[in-house]
């Protein structure tokens, strides 16, 4: 029951927003998002820490095609649901200083997005997964289109077509598997069995059909070309939704669907895909170093981070997958923090150019500290949340192939270079006329940054509770994977 509540509560709340006019909308949306977070915390307490799928519900939906409304959560799903329900209120809070036009539509779309995202993370039916996956695209498309920056029509359209092309391939893959299920059903277990019964070559086709969808969503090099433009043009909250949560749909898809459904395909192509991911890490990091626009820099850094997550998952060992789980959460929190800092700077100075800023630390030391914590989390300093995930990921990749891990490891150094460089040029140095006017932080800004910094430090110092939730499910998944490839 709690799963249904988690899925549909945001949708109902979104519909109710239509009845509200004016300033109240923000507060009601925030209230709804907090209630949703409370529900997910409730689920966390009810959750038994084992590998079983819990809170499972299975209703027939389209009988003639063997499609069921089958939802449930294991540790992996629960963590991502928690990430979603944690980030959405934070994202809504980040918009408190802004007055978007048509506020009720704006928050309606954010909550509708949450509905689809939670749906993606709890679906246990291939078709249902696909429907939620596509549903998530529509609100974000309109958020980017209606509230985005210059040239948004062209850029969001490119984003839309890219991701739609990917998901259609995934649908083709799912239908292909569906053909091999004994009594024609999209149920996850039947699809797993159908996929594993195929020979290696056919699993390779399935791998590519589904991997394309996930790789575009994440995005992995060379399918990333939509990402920097879209992240830069989207309104801040849209960027946060895209990078903080939506990106995880791709990585989650690899864990939940790709590894179990086409294990031999993964084994055969993983090397190639990991090399792509690592190329993406180095490429994006290098470009990030050369960026002048802070928002664009973070967009590229996101490609680098997600590349490492993808490599870790595809390595197919416990450390890699477990690291990716942690890193998904950390990256979600950190990137939302970073984009919020971009937004704060932009709303004060009307620019995102790094070289135009400087010396803000002298004006507002409090902001300097909070920014530094977010930044350190992002460069994966020990005792921040980024470290745990990145360490496990590199460890996982190292077990797969030491050379690849060595190259992937460079990303940590490059990450430190571009992040510290941007910190330097924004916060340190001489205060100029523009930055001297840095307005003090408002209440909601402080609240967002403090929440994010608290999360960064808390899970950096003591990550065990999070690790424990996912661990049994991850071990079960990886063991299943290894069994299927015969190792």
């Amino acid at each position, binding site marked *: 029951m709690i799963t249904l509540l988690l899925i549909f509560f945001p949708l109902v709340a979104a519909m109710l927003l239509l009845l509200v006019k004016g300033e109240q909308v923000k507060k009601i949306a925030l209230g709804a998002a907090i209630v949703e977070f409370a529900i997910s915390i409730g689920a966390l307490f009810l959750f038994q820490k084992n590998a079983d799928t819990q809170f499972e519900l299975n209703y027939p939906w389209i009988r003639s095609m063997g499609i069921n409304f089958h939802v449930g959560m294991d540790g992996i799903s629960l963590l991502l649901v928690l990430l979603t329900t944690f980030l959405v209120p934070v994202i809504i809070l980040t918009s408190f200083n802004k007055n978007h036009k048509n506020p009720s539509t704006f928050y309606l779309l954010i909550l509708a997005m949450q509905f689809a995202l939670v749906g993606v993370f709890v679906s246990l039916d291939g078709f249902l997964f696909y429907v939620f996956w*596509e549903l998530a695209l529509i609100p974000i498309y309109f958020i980017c289109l*209606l509230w985005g920056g210059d040239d948004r029509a062209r850029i969001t359209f490119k984003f839309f*077509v890219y991701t739609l092309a990917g998901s259609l391939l995934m649908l*083709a893959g799912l*239908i292909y598997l569906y053909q091999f299920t004994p009594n024609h059903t999209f149920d996850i277990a039947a699809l797993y069995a159908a996929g594993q019964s195929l020979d290696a070559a056919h699993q390779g086709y399935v791998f590519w059909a589904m991997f394309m969808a996930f790789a575009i969503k994440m995005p992995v090099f060379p399918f990333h070309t939509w990402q920097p433009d879209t992240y830069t043009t989207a309104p801040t909250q849209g960027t946060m939704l895209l990078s903080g949560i939506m990106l995880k749909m791709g990585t989650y898809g690899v864990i939940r669907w790709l590894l179990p459904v086409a294990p031999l395909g993964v084994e055969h192509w993983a090397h190639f895909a990991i090399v792509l991911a690592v190329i993406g890490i180095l490429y994006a990091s290098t470009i990030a170093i050369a960026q002048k626009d802070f928002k664009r820099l973070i967009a590229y850094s996101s490609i680098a981070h997600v590349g490492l997550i993808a490599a870790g998952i595809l390595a197919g060992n416990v450390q890699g997958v477990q690291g990716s789980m942690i890193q998904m959460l950390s990256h979600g929190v950190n990137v939302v923090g970073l984009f919020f800092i971009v937004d704060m700077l932009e709303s004060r100075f009307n620019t995102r150019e790094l070289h135009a800023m400087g010396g803000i630390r002298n004006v507002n030391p409090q902001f300097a500290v909070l920014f530094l914590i977010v930044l350190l989390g992002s460069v994966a300093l020990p005792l921040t949340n980024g470290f745990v995930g990145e360490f496990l990921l590199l460890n996982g990749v190292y077990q797969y192939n030491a050379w690849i891990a060595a190259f992937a490891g460079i990303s940590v150094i490059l990450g430190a270079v571009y992040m510290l460089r941007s910190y330097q040029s924004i916060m340190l140095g001489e205060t100029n006329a523009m930055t001297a006017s840095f307005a003090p932080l408002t209440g909601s800004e402080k609240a967002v940054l403090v929440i994010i910094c608290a999360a960064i430090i808390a899970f950096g110092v003591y990550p065990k509770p999070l690790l424990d939730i996912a661990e049994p499910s991850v071990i079960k998944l990886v063991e299943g994977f290894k069994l299927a490839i015969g190792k």
Partner: protein
Amino acid sequence: MKALILLSSLGVIALLAEIFSFKKLLYPLVIIGLITTFIFNAFDWGTDRIYFNMMRYDDFAVAFSSVLIGVSFLWFIMADGFFKEESNMTDYFALVIFSLAGAVIMVSYSNMAMLFLGIEILSIPMYVLAGSKKDDVLSNEAGFKYLIMGAFASGFLLFGIALIYGATGSFDIVEIAQTVAAGAASSIFYAGLLLMLVGMAFKVSAAPFHFWAPDVYQGAPTPVTAYMATIVKTAAFAAFLRLFYTCFQGSAATWTSIVVVMAGLTMLAGNITAVLQTSAKRMLAYSSVAHAGYMLLGLVALNQYSQGSILMYTLAYSVGSITSFGVLGYVAKAKGGDAVDSFNGLAKTNPFLAFVMTVALLSLAGIPPTAGFFAKYYIFTAAFQAGHAWLVLVAILASLIGVYYYFRIIIAMYFKHSNLEVTIEVSANHKLLFVITVLLTIALGLMPDFVIGLL
């Protein structure tokens, strides 16, 4: 059979309205008549009766008749303006209703003669209606072109029927199938089959026989275009499917490869040409050609999913088309042109119309959770299970192209600004119509099983 009798009587009543001067009552009378017909038609469900070896009211016929009558009900609400302004409105009523009766024959025939009669009863009123704007050159061109092309197609069809009769000695579609199954098919039979295939391809505007469609669709008055895109297309496809599913299934090896090529060509030609259009009406015309291509997938599949998937597709596509042509009518009237640019800034002046149009376009583009998505999904699955994986791949690529031009309108509505900002007044019954179509689009998307399960 009840539906056919009721519709024919309704047509006659429409003609009498001129003589006995109850013209003002005619519109409500037709609406009530359609509702009654819909209900009585539903009573035929599951009876499977054969009338005089000419018509067979099986579930297929009843289901498609229901779609036809239901969609024409929506169409009458949409096209009320079409009947108000003209002095010869009773003729128009009669023509439309008679053509609807023809459509019902086309979905319920069991004899080739009835197929031909149905097509003619459907088509001849359409020739007149396409040219009904008498002082408009484009409308005249549309009527004339439609007549010539329609006559050609009928010629092919009739020639094909004659050859098949020569080869098998029967007009009855079941008997023909049995004769062929008994091994009596000669080369004359196959020649006849191919001629009929060409004739039907003309009627459903499948490539390479689709060239008439865009001109006719663009030139005809918008309500008539909507009628052709929905009712005529549904009836033609149902007839096509009934013929090839029942009668020619045994000789599938000869014609499936041809239809596969046709389907691929139609999808690509329709979608690619639609991208290049500046007129929204012409774009929708090409998109209608493209949709014929997707529906051909259901025909080549030739398995237990064919009928259900085409039923779903025609319904989803008709509902989407009625809405989009309805909104287009408003926009074209307000802005004085049907270019894609006339949709600029619609979201600002008329958020309701923009939203309705968006839902319809998302459905036509096949984005979940709309009806159009499930329609595409079922039809693709049907073709996939029949082993046409490559064709499905082409169809997926083609739908991506489709997304491009449907979104052009969405982008224009929400993103672009217009110099000519007029708030369009939407009449109350059209508002109701749009609410119904939007709800229907979403309801069919959430519960597609209801329609698919019928056949």
